[in-house]
């Protein structure tokens, strides 16, 4: 029972109904190449003016540099974008920023050192804030590039 085919949504035993706002393993990213750029772009299913507050966390391993990865984004899809980042471990991958795609979807950007070849991480999310509570976050597209914007 501890091995699941899908990502896992956790439901609390008490308070605030039965939304599952802590979700683990919603998207996995793996690379074995240093070619293609140092910016990784993860487009989400959150659009502008949807009023969703998000905590998004990357957890993984930069094998090339032998360092763990744990970094976080926070964002609010107000009628304009509000966002922040924090990096718990440094050197493996960096939560670099959040921007709006041309279709006004939120895109979360991760950077890695250029020498990285083998690396992987997974995304966890928390949607416990008063607005956007229990949002079913998804990564709808992902790309790698040499520029800070892609979508």
């Amino acid at each position, binding site marked *: 029972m501890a091995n699941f085919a*899908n990502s896992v949504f956790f*439901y*609390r*035993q*008490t308070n605030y109904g039965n939304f599952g706002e802590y979700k683990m393993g919603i998207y996995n990213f793996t690379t074995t190449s240093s070619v293609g750029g140092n910016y990784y772009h993860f487009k989400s299913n959150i659009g502008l003016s949807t009023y969703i507050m998000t905590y998004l966390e990357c957890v993984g391993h930069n094998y090339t540099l032998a360092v763990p990865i744990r970094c976080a984004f*926070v964002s609010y899809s107000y009628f304009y974008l509000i966002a922040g980042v924090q990096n*718990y471990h440094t050197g493996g991958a960096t939560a670099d920023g959040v921007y709006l795609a041309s279709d006004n979807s939120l895109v979360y950007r991760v950077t890695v050192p250029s020498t990285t070849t083998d690396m992987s991480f997974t995304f966890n999310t*928390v949607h*416990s804030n008063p607005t956007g509570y229990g949002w079913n976050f998804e990564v709808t597209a992902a790309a790698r590039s040499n520029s800070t914007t892609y979508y």
Partner: protein
Amino acid sequence: MDGTLKSRQLQDQIQQLITNMATLAVPTRIGALNNTGSSGSNPYTQQLEIYAFKTTDSTPLYMHFKTNISSTANKIITLEAVGYNYGQALPIRCSWSFYTAGGTLYDRGRVNKASGLSADGMYLSSDGYVVIRAYSGSHYFTGWTFNAYINAWYYTDNIQITAAIQTSTSGNYY
């Protein structure tokens, strides 16, 4: 009903089963596949999303969360808060580690990995249960969830938050 349709229905049923398995009944407790060490097996090393907190009020600044862990429980536990302090535009990831034995609470470390919330302190309530205290300079539209991690000693109970309140002072409340 031909074989193709039966096969399709079976596939749908399997997919539904997988979906149901991913939506767990509460509380979620995850145990290790294997255990080593001298303290016996521990089937529930992680208890995730045991409680969620959210508020739209920026004040009061202190929050007290009373647990079901007694001062004589003889347990070593870490509680962790993970979430988003919107008012301060910061992530939340902080933890309280403690040990209770013989009527005493031992603070075994508090860590603030992100800046949106501080693991401010811990104390025993007047009826002998562990209370953890959190602090932030503003809680405007803040939300987080608690996870629990169990250290040594055989432990089968659910870790629970039994009461919570915001106060304006850093002292004991419960």
